């Protein structure tokens, strides 16, 4: 499809990007935490990808290439606006210690239908948004967009071991924060007290 676009069938670009709208927007949102800014960054990233489509090399995946453009766009915008704190100062380093999970004796499965409840969705969103940026990005690409560890490393320009460390911390942080909350809003069936047990 890319070859056809470059050969002049430019309207195909609409179809090319449709499957990637969500991942690009989500990546932008993981930087700015603000819907309007994330939309601006996403639009700009898609326009840049269009203008630079001839430089795309088929050896990488189009989705990974788009994510890299989005990340660059987000970073340069934040630098321009000077609203971002330097990542090295704000975000914990990769060797930032062990994240202990929330200790549980049992876990009752939260069904996927639970996300139809607004308060549950809100809780999940807040937990992801509250992750430090370097963990949020890895979680977003690996667990939400389902990129491979290798693709995530490539898109973020970091090593595979760094992806694994950050992903582990992100997951543990979410478990620690969310499991007590989810357990309290989605209680299991009332325990029946059996005197002979």
């Amino acid at each position: 499809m890319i070859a056809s676009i470059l050969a002049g069938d430019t309207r195909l670009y609409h179809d090319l990007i449709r499957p990637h709208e969500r991942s690009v927007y989500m990546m932008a949102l993981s930087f700015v935490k603000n819907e309007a800014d994330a939309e601006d960054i996403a639009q700009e990233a898609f326009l840049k990808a269009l203008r630079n489509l001839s430089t795309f090399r088929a050896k990488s995946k189009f989705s990974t290439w788009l994510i890299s453009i989005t990340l660059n766009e987000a970073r340069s915008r934040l630098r321009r606006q000077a609203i971002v704190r330097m990542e090295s100062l704000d975000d914990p380093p990769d060797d930032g210690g062990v994240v202990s999970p929330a200790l549980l004796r049992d876990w009752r499965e939260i069904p996927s239908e639970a996300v139809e409840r607004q308060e549950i969705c809100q809780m999940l969103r807040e937990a992801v948004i509250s992750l430090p940026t370097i963990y949020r990005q890895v979680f977003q690409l690996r667990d939400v967009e389902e990129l491979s560890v290798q693709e995530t490393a490539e898109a973020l320009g970091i090593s595979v071991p760094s992806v694994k460390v950050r992903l582990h911390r992100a997951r543990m942080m979410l478990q620690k924060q969310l499991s007590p909350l989810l357990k309290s809003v989605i209680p299991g069936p009332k325990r029946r007290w059996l005197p002979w047990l």
Partner: protein
Amino acid sequence: MVIKCKHVWGYISDYLDAALPEDIRLEVQKHLDHCEICSAILDATRNIIIITADERVFELPVGFSERLHARIEMELEEIEGH
């Protein structure tokens, strides 16, 4: 080698991704088989990853797609004009 809960917590992410070396995976599995706390942590982590990644949690803003494609169309018209 007998591994303790704290070691297992460090392996949870790789365990979920099936990325542990076989010898460690077996040790972790053995531990999980008898430790209700670690297996609850594992279940909770897996469950939380799945529901957080649900598309309904983070939705695109209303009209996002229309605005994006309108802007792309303007750009394409401009490219063609040159």
